[in-house]
């Protein structure tokens, strides 16, 4: 491997430097049917799960075939996407917010060859490369975070939990049998890069052990005041520690009963790692939504406080998710989101129907908002 220069001169970093040009302009990448009809769309319809038509005032139509994808994607895979888009879509495509790939064609007769092509492509391991679906009252792709593939704070893996979950929910990726759309999201720690806190079903990685203190290195690696200030429950204070060899060092002490395992201290100080094989696992939250449709946006609620990490396929987690989805599908009214259904039947009934154990962990005790989640009425169901 010989170093190939891009033209950058490290001795003169400002020479010919280009900065602050931002992203490419969106309309460079519009397919002609989009460019011609932007802002003039009349209506849309799902022709079958994963396939949509949008009709414009001009009479133009754009047919979209939506495919699921792992957001972790190799350049080989992207090149294959390009090959498909060149073959069927004049070299245009787009990605959705939920990591789906959309192939667009401008006439109906182009759908079938595209669909056949997509369905025929499989990885060597046997999984589909481009499963069609993710529309309407079904279960779309999971938005997620990095997990063990590339992050320093995760309490579980992201790509693996997502793959395992989507395998279990796969039929509903390709169907429209749910009462409303079900949005599943995954975040591998409570920093929630994926902002899963308003999802119908949220998979969340969580630590359960306070940080281990690497006293010998703590003062060398960290700004102690920053680590102390980072703690939302004020559980960390400065401490003088005597190491086994007799040296005294500046470090911190953690009031462990106050720790809520957020890992914020670790973000500020690498000498306070939390990760632990038994301590780490999954929290399941349900009933959130971001749309303003019918009822206001809602936060997801914690319904399972902890499921151990069961590599490589997390069966307890996927079984629980499947059970919740099936119970919702059987009980909710048409258009009713998972959270709206749970509120209508009552959360006491939700736990009964989903056969989930209610434990003290599920009662909020974090600051003022907790009070508003307790039951302040004599109305409840037996």
């Amino acid at each position, binding site marked *: *491997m010989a170093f*190939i220069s891009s033209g950058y001169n490290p001795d003169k970093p400002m020479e010919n430097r280009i900065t602050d040009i931002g992203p490419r302009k969106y309309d460079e990448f519009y397919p002609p049917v989009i460019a011609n009809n932007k802002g003039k769309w009349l209506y849309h319809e799902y022709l079958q799960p994963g396939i949509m038509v949008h009709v414009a005032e001009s009479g133009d139509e754009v047919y979209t075939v939506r495919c699921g994808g792992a957001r972790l994607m190799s350049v080989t895979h*992207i090149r294959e996407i*390009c090959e498909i888009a060149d073959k069927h879509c004049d070299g245009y*495509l787009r990605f959705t917010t939920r990591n789906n790939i959309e192939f667009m064609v401008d006439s109906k007769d182009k759908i079938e060859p595209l669909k056949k092509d997509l369905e025929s492509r499989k990885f060597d391991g046997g999984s589909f490369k481009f499963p069609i679906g993710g529309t309407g009252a079904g279960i779309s792709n999971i938005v997620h975070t990095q997990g063990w593939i590339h992050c320093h704070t995760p309490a579980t893996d992201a790509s693996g939990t997502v793959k395992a979950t989507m395998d279990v929910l796969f039929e509903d990726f390709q169907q429209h049998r749910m009462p409303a759309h079900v949005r599943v999201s995954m975040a591998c720690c*409570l920093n929630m890069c994926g902002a899963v806190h308003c999802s119908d079903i949220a998979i969340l990685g969580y630590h359960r052990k306070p940080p281990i203190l690497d006293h010998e290195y703590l003062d060398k690696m960290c700004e102690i005041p920053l680590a102390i200030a980072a703690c939302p429950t004020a559980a960390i204070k400065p401490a003088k520690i005597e190491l086994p060899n007799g040296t005294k060092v500046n470090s911190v002490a953690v009031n462990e009963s106050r720790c809520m395992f*957020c890992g*914020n201290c670790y973000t500020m100080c690498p000498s306070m790692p939390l990760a632990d094989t038994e301590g780490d696992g999954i929290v399941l939250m349900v009933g959130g939504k971001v749309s303003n449709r019918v009822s206001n946006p809602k936060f997801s609620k914690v319904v399972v406080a902890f499921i151990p990490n069961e590599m490589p396929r997390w069966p307890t987690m996927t079984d629980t998710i499947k059970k919740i989805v099936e119970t919702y599908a059987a009980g909710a009214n048409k258009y009713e989101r998972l959270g709206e259904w749970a509120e209508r039947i009552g959360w006491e009934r939700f736990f009964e129907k989903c056969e989930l154990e209610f434990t003290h962990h599920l009662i909020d005790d974090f600051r003022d908002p907790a009070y508003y989640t307790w039951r302040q009425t004599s109305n409840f169901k037996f």
Partner: protein
Amino acid sequence: MVGQRLKLNEMEEIKMAKHPTPMLDELESGPWPSFVSDLKQEAEKRAKNPDNVDFQIPVDAVDDLLGVLELSYKHGRTHWKHGGIVGVFGYGGGVIGRYCDQPALFPGVAHFHTMRVAQPAGKFYTTDYLRQICDLWDLRGSGITNMHGSTGDIIFLGTTTPQLEEVFFELTHNLNQDLGGSGSNLRTPADCIGKARCEYACYDTQDLCHHLTLEYQDELHRPAFPYKFKFKFDGCPNCCVASIARADMSFIGTWKDDIRIDQEAVQAYIGGEIPSNGGAHSGRDWGPFDIQKEVIDLCPTKCMWMEDGKLKIDNRECTRCMHCINVMPRALRIGKDTGLSILVGAKAPILDGAQMGSLLVPFIKAEDPYDEIKEVIEAIWDWWMEEGKNRERLGELIKRQGFQKLLEVTGIDPVPQHVQEPRTNPYIFWKEEEVEGGWQRDINEFRKHHLR
């Protein structure tokens, strides 16, 4: 023939795979696209190198990525160290340092930094552009990406420090393409598909997203904020990019006038000629469409009714939740007097609990050059940069100093639309100038009438 090919593949795999990955291998089965299979195909491609790429980072980076991930599956813990301070000259964001904590076992990923590449609004692409991205990342990185990261960027996953400037130089010089945001910066703004292909869009999300992204490149690249700051643009209250849940400032399309009704199409829905909700419920027999039950009774403000076979809407009472329009997209359309609402302060739970966006500007026009919108943004930033503590999100500052303070700094008058309900306590922080005669009083004058 097929059998023979499989056998050949298996043999190659035995020869090629650098690290055994028995646990990850179990994630190759099942119908959903397997990231493990994809990583393996990339590892194999790099090993064989059919295009003679002069890889600028270790050829076995992806093999080692599989290896370190397998080790995490064995341990139930990550093997990535805390980030380091790496970046490109003059920028304080866009690159996240990443080092493996087992570099001797996995030298190919010992240094494995992330680069965030600002995505085009709407995430439309041409294959020409994507191939340029692939060629660059093949040469100078691991060949592994996220399409896309949670915030919206194209993520380049894994390269070494000497390659950072090289990638940046090639991006800016050859691809007319910049990096995205990270750290205590404006993060790369993201939007929904909007007017490009959606009849619900109340403003051009792509244009506003792109415009503000360019306007605030300095804030995006050079950290001057207390913490991260996110803009997200939803074209309508359906909120497909979840702005209301995760953006410090969310821009949600809305309208002020009447929902447009096509009464003939309403009849076509009632008659079952057009499927409800655009056919979204086709997988189950929900019985014949019932406009009373499915639309009118579900309207949260009960502002709709049927009269003489026609659908009527009392638009003044409508809160624009989108349900009726979603159910009957061919009969009902958003109004024509469109713009957006600005909500502020949404964030995920860390640190002080999750916050939903709170309504600040009920309605504002969204027209180039968007000056009125920029005024709101800049007033908020001035306040937050002055008063915000280290790692305090805007929503937390609003909670700490009060919604009134937010109104004061933005010069926005309070209206009932700002609250779900008025306060339930009378502990009002009256200001001296609001109280007749002020607060300065003479105790002796008081005592003339009130003995000690």
